[in-house]
């Protein structure tokens, strides 16, 4: 059975419209992408969708009360809310440097959450 799915590539702000053709649940064609990332995204989005999660965690003793963080790579879409929840109980001590790991293996994804900004000690 052949089916097509209309998607929007979210890999960059260009937001190309993609048409993914599946045959017996296998991706046979991706159209509409401007670059190879779009093709990879189209394949993945219909089989195993993932996202980078960005949020903040509490900082004690810093010039700012929170520091921005992100997952070092994408995690399954279904785990976004669990990841956000896990970050609520994390607190780090200033100074924090961009790239510092604030939480390892978030929700069993094998992916670390890292700081994206420097926050110096107050």
């Amino acid at each position, binding site marked *: 059975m052949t089916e097509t799915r209309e998607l*929007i590539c979210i890999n960059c*702000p260009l*937001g190309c419209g993609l048409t993914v053709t599946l045959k017996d649940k296998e991706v046979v064609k991706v159209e509409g992408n401007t670059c190879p990332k779009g093709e990879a995204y189209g394949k993945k989005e219909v089989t195993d969708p993932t996202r*980078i*999660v*960005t949020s903040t965690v509490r900082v004690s003793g810093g010039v700012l009360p*929170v520091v921005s963080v992100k997952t070092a790579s994408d995690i399954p879409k279904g785990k976004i*809310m669990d990841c*956000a929840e896990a970050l609520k109980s994390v607190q780090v001590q200033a100074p924090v440097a*961009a790239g510092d790991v604030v939480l390892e293996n978030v929700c069993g994804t094998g992916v670390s959450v890292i700081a994206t900004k420097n926050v110096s000690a107050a």
Partner: protein
Amino acid sequence: MKNTFDLIIVGGGPAGLAAGIQAKKAGVEDLLILERDHELGGILNQCIHNGFGLHTFKEELTGPEYAQRYIDQAMELEIPYKLNTMVLDIAREGNEKIVTIMNREDGLVFLRTKAVILAMGCRERPRGALNIPGYRPAGIYTAGTAQRLVNMEGYMPGREVVILGSGDIGLIMARRMTLEGAKVKVVAELMPYSGGLQRNIVQCLEDFHIPLKLSHTVVDIRGKERVTGITIAQVDENRKPIPGTEEFYSCDTLLLSCGLIPENELSGKLGARLSPVTSGPVVNESLETSVEGVFACGNVLHVHDLVDYVSEEAGRAGSHAAEYIRDWDKDRSRDNKENAVRIQTEGGIRYSVPQMIRPEHMEDTVTVRFRVGRVFQDVYVSVYRGEERILHKKRRKMAPGEMEQLVLKKSDLTAAGGLDKIVMKVEEA
């Protein structure tokens, strides 16, 4: 402090930083960046989501990470800057400009400079302009204010949220508030299309099953001390609410994401001609405003959705300012402004930046950025010189929320004499 300079840059966001870096690389040694905030980086400091820098760095960075790349470069080049310093006024004195600044250490100071780059960014449309009837209870924020509160101060403005306007900041905040545990009930958009990027509709709303109601607006705000609920209604093609379509949502917070406007109080006072469409200065191919030696770039020139374009544009402003400084002693009286070719936009194109080109000053090509007024599919963007079509480019899709660009060649503009304008328009396929 020292008070004469070759170049002063107003604003230390991505535009100001990229302009400074490029100017310094082009040989300007005597420059200064002025920033009113306590850190460099501008609005990017509160944009903690990813999606920055794909074009420039071929990787996806968050706002603070993108800003840091430019801050690092500026530090490496030892570009002088002053934080916590507000620019109050810019005025002309002969060919020089006098920049009035204020900060705690120096008080009120007048600085003299040959060239100025405006890089003040933009601000959000205030809620007063929205004309929503009813009380003004607590719990109403612009989306950008909420973004700052959540991402920099760690403060959640509310638990049950309705968002009016589907600009990017509104969409980003719908996801952000959801991740922080709030319930975002609906995003209502007055227009029949979203003003935000497609990718943000997908990953900020659809991922979290947040409904987007197009052609809807807020008709009533309930609550006296604090918002307790919002009524939205569908609007007709004249943007008038249609009776009988009202829907009530209980909530404690209303976020307004109704667009951004360039921050041009200073430019206006200086006498730079402003465009009624962009609210930014009118500029030529060198990104120079109608005031000689004053350049503009980034969101103060026109609102950008991609910071990569801001950095690129600002870099060009930096090099042009460097040229201007290099030619300081040259007689400019022959720089005949009448030789400028005006870019007239019509047929669905709202504006272009630059708005005019002086062919003898342009490099081999010039990038023209523009926005369209509605959604177009499978059309051409054409440029005419008189009857002759000099450019004809196919576009699969164009939307008001996304900035477009095309490249004009010098040969197209210099071939015919007596040319005073070219016309840019959308044509059906």
